[in-house]
């Protein structure tokens, strides 16, 4: 019983030991033997990207679609496939216009969009991209406008060629934009990601071609679908192999489901387009829609996988520890 107290004359009574008692815990094993990872109460180390999926993953899809479509349009124009050329040009212009809206909408301070044009920084893929889009978007727009109206044909040809030249860069730089972050599932795949992106972009543009062009003009789109799908699937496989345990988000959870749907639709669209698309317009349109949906799923899947890998500290801690330990050994 504690009988102590404090009076005007000072402390009185017995004061037993005041040490706090806690229950004996499990003895801690030596740290170096612990294979499991530790974290600060399971909290993320990295800050998750604040980008909205609809804006940014949506832009990666639309930008890829536009860039590859511009190349397809130029080829179609040169080889006398006017319907394919017009459809691809209009698609590219529409996709890139929507992209610009999405990009400005995603800024925390949209009214300051123009601040990106006060510098050019090669160390910032976003800065490079803004300047690239500043050249590409007008070209794609003019190319489509001249084709649809039938006016200023020489200007249209220059714009078509310009858009086709810049298109591949528009389709591939977004992979650098995404990988130049600390997000493990993105950064660690920086070698393969551009190939996944251009493959996905080619499949999307091929899908658009199958939708807009009659069967007798859509041959290149059918072949591009096969080529793009194969490229995307092979590059994805290599990417996942390189990532090791960081590839988990590409196979599990919401991002994993998106990636699975994307792969299924890619194969179905490319093979369906090649087999049935050469005879039936409705079948070609269906395959085209599947390819477009597949490309969108790929981008949203990769986007979500990155966010998931940033959210869970194990994807930051375990590979970094392995790297550090390998260096020390």
């Amino acid at each position, binding site marked *: 019983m504690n009988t102590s107290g404090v009076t005007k004359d000072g402390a009185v009574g017995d004061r037993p030991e005041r040490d706090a008692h806690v229950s004996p815990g499990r003895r801690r094993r030596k740290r170096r033997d612990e294979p499991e990872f530790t974290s600060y109460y399971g909290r993320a*180390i990295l800050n998750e990207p604040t980008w909205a999926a609809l804006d940014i993953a949506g832009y990666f899809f639309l930008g890829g679609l536009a860039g590859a479509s511009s190349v397809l349009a130029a080829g179609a124009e040169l080889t006398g496939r006017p319907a394919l050329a017009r459809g691809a040009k209009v698609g590219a212009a529409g996709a890139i216009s929507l992209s610009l809206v999405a990009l400005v909408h995603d800024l925390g301070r949209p009214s300051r969009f123009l601040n990106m044009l006060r510098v050019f920084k090669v*160390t910032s*893929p*976003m800065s490079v991209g803004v300047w690239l889009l500043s050249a590409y978007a007008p070209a794609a727009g003019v190319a489509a406008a001249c084709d649809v109206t039938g006016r200023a044909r020489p200007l249209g040809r220059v714009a078509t060629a310009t858009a086709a030249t810049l298109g591949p860069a528009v389709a591939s730089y977004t992979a*650098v934009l995404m990988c130049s972050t600390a997000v493990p599932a993105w950064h660690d795949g920086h070698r393969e990601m551009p190939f996944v992106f251009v493959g996905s972009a*080619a499949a999307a543009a091929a899908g658009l071609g199958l939708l807009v062009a009659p069967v007798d003009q859509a041959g290149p789109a059918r072949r591009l679908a096969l080529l793009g799908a194969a490229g995307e699937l092979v590059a994805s496989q290599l990417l996942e192999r390189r990532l090791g345990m960081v590839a988990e988000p590409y196979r599990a959870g919401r991002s994993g489901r998106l990636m699975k749907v994307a792969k299924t639709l890619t194969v179905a669209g490319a093979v369906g387009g090649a087999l049935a698309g050469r005879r039936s317009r409705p079948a070609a349109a269906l395959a085209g829609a599947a390819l477009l949906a597949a490309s969108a799923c790929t981008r949203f899947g990769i986007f979500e996988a990155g966010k998931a890998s940033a959210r869970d500290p194990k994807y930051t801690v375990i590979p970094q520890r392995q790297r550090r330990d390998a260096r020390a050994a």
Partner: protein
Amino acid sequence: MSDVLNIVQVDPARDTGYEDAPPRMGFFTDTSLCIGCKACEVACKEWNSVPEDGLDFTGMSMDNTQGLSADTWRHVAFIEQREIATDAPGDFRWLMASDVCKHCTHAACLDVCPTGALFRTEFGTVVVQDDVCNGCGYCVPACPYGVVAIREEDGGAHKCTLCYDRLGVGQEPACAKSCPTNSIQFGPLDELRERAGERVEALHAAGVEDAQLYGHDPADGVGGDGAFFLLLDEPEVYGLPPDPVVTTRDLPAMWRHAAVAAGLLAVGVASTFAGRRR
């Protein structure tokens, strides 16, 4: 430590173009002295007018601040370890550590910023110019430490400035000024590194074998931190990445791969028009 001294020191301020740059300034946060009082958190908020960001009760420890954010530029981590390798039953320890922006020698946030809002000061620190930032959010996932973040109220990126305004008039940053145990030490980085080396040796001699420096090494993945630490356990225990790398180190390789991929796309599309008419 001898390896560290052999590395040619990078001077970020001079590399940026400041010809008469003052010595590079930084923080040495010695967590073995931290008592978890959070005076640094409060002083930082007061001096920099950083808004309140939620009065949460986490229940996980005495830490209800949870981490660095747009509205928390100093964060005191509080780790309760009940299982230390001693035979005494019921033994446990508290680890406390005041985290802050690392002001990296090679700063990813600064590299990827598309507006130039993030810039290198003459003191070698990294600061966001609030009136230039357009809130693109690229710096947020670029930071290997999870420091910089977007403030929802104004849409802009915010982080520790190492009290750029105070440095300009010869004052030390508010957090260091308020630290009652000198756990947060401010000064020229060279001096701090020297002092930290002596401190870690003294701790080792006293039997604190786990004492280790973090972020002090100019040979690490970010070229060394302008704000580095003395830790008593592994970095990840404090919520710090064990081996951070500035993402833009790989940027040349990324551009090369992207260029090859773009070329392949152009060739690939062209090939679909070759040969057959249909």
